[in-house]
């Protein structure tokens, strides 16, 4: 047994010593990354020294580690895709990649991973890009600490920051993504973890799920996007402790949920969005411990929503707390704190003695005639809201929080 281990150890060391390091710099004998990949053996390390490398269509077809020292620039000169990884176990670290070509027929990316496993893409800076990091039918990868800065102006001719397509078990952490079409886009991608990213100023969505299940995203910040996060046609997604801020505009949402089921939304903060959460066709979703602060509409319910449960959330200073466009209701509100609540608590158990009705008549009117928004906070509107509160006619009469809290929920 001991011999066996010793043998393995020796074998391992021999193997290890065989891997070599290849240095690439502008005036070395090996002056291009392509050349270095060509002569490298499996599990070699390629070190790119500082400089500018004008290359594109670099194909990494063996398990290599490519490390940039002091951010060498790889300039694609707008000619097409820059790096394509087609092998397992590849690491790319510390490169500055610019000028990805734009195409209307192909999705050129700064770095693409194709049908590969166990890759790591980290510490990259991508600028002037079409698509940033494109993962295609790949598994078990890590995308860490990248900075992606686009210059997208129109949706039709711009790409996404990080795109996953049929890629499972991917970890995306600590990335910063700015001004692309979708910050992070997942299509048919399951069991991914998206954590601690910042996605801002994107044209469409900060983060976008399509047909992706069992994913988790947490501790991310989505600010000033077309819409913060869109989750569509997906199941069992966990959304924890994210911040959605200042997504302003006529079709802007902090979070857009459409046709999703069994999700958990917990500990998020929605601040100053036109619409905090827009839900449509969502079933069995639990909203707990979220903060809705100063939004136009905290939650807009469009229809076909069953068993959505709001428990222990804070609704603070929103122009409208909840908006409904029908008078059928299957949403449950319980033990939330509403800053607009005017009831009292005589037995001092921390729960208001009068139920709270989060839907106002005025929000119903605004749904019908949007121009009437200009009468917001008028005394007349207060009067008709009050009369609706006393005897609901237009708003669902079972839509109420029976146990509104007197103090803000802390967790």
């Amino acid at each position: 047994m001991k011999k066996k281990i010793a043998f393995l150890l020796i074998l391992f060391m021999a193997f290890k010593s065989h891997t070599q390091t290849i240095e690439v710099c502008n005036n070395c004998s090996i002056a291009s990354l392509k050349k270095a990949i060509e002569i490298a053996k499996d599990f070699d390390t390629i070190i790119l020294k500082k400089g500018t490398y004008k290359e594109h269509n670099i194909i990494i077809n063996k398990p290599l580690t490519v490390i940039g020292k002091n951010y060498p620039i790889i300039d694609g000169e707008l000619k097409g895709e820059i790096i394509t990884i087609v092998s397992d176990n590849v690491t790319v670290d510390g490169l500055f990649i610019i000028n990805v070509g734009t195409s209307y027929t192909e999705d050129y990316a700064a770095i693409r991973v194709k049908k590969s496993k166990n890759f790591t893409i980290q510490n990259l800076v991508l600028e002037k890009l079409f698509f940033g990091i494109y993962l295609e039918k790949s598994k078990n990868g890590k995308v860490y600490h990248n900075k992606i800065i686009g210059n997208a102006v129109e949706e039709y001719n711009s790409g996404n920051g990080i795109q996953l397509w049929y890629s499972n078990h991917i970890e995306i952490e600590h990335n910063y993504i700015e001004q692309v079409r979708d910050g992070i886009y997942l299509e048919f991608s399951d069991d991914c973890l998206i954590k601690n990213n910042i996605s801002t100023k994107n044209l469409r969505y900060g983060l976008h799920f399509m047909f992706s299940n069992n994913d988790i995203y947490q501790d991310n910040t989505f600010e000033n996007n077309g819409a913060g996060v869109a989750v569509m046609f997906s199941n069992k997604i966990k959304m924890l402790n994210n911040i959605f801020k200042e997504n302003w505009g006529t079709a802007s949402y902090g979070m857009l949920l459409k046709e999703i089921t069994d999700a958990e939304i917990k500990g998020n903060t929605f601040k100053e969005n036109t619409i905090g959460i827009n839900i449509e066709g969502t079933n069995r979703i639990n909203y707990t411990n979220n903060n809705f602060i100063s939004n136009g509409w905290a939650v807009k319910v469009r229809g076909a929503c069953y068993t959505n449960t709001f428990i222990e959330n804070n609704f603070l200073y929103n122009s409208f707390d909840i908006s409904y466009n029908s008078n059928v209701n299957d949403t449950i509100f319980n033990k939330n704190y509403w800053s607009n609540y005017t009831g009292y608590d005589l037995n001092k158990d921390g729960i208001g003695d009068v139920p709270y009705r989060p839907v106002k008549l005025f929000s119903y009117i605004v749904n019908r005639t949007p121009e009437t928004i200009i009468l917001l906070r008028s005394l007349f509107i207060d009067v008709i809201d009050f009369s609706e509160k006393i005897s609901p006619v237009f708003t669902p009469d079972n839509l109420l929080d029976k146990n509104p809290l007197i103090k803000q929920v802390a967790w």
Partner: protein
Amino acid sequence: MLKILKYSFYDLMRSRWSYVYFAFYFLLGLVLLFLNNNLSKAVITLMNVIIVLVPLIGTIFGVMYYYNSKEFTELLLAQPLKRSSIFLGQYLGVAISLSLSLILGLGIPFILYGLFKSGVIWDFSLLLITGTFLTFIFTALAFNIALSNENKIKGFGYAILLWLFLAIIYDGLFLMSLILFEDYPLDKLSLIGTMLNPIDLSRTLILLKLDISALLGYTGAVFKTFFGTYFGLIVSFIMLAVWVTIPVLRIVFKSKRNDF
């Protein structure tokens, strides 16, 4: 005119009412801030108070002052003084003393609370500015009513009706017409409708600060330029200034023609 202004002003200062008014706002500010412990909520409540109460008090006070000082006015009219300066002096005396009560009454508690260190200072100063504008507008309107009506009871009646109309009934009619014509493009109409009522105008001005995220939810180019840029703020202020100027001009005009 300045002398009459000064006289009216000191007269009001000596009378209880401006102190009562001051004390009311002072207490309101204190209660809102120190019992509520939340600045943004306090600003919202204050907004409701300002757009409802300030016009009411301005109207009632203006009418009351005019009728009360009628004998003195008649005495002044017998002197070699320009009529416009007599009435403008009185008007400014009332409006300035009311505005001062408002600004000091609300300002002091907020300064005590440490407003200068907080981010809502702009929201708050906007509140005070609109409050001042409303005082000037509604006092001028009250003087107009009083000048046109010899009969005290009638004058008071009209004054209260004016307030009721602009504060509540107007919005009701406005809302009904918007719903009635909902098939047509309404964004221009709704903005013009707002401009024609000083209370709505100041409400919109404050909305621009407090509820901008909701206002931007409406699709419409006119709305968007109005609310999304400084354009809305500037136009609103100009309209408020117009709302002060027109009634004041009418005071001048009417006082020249009136037979006392």
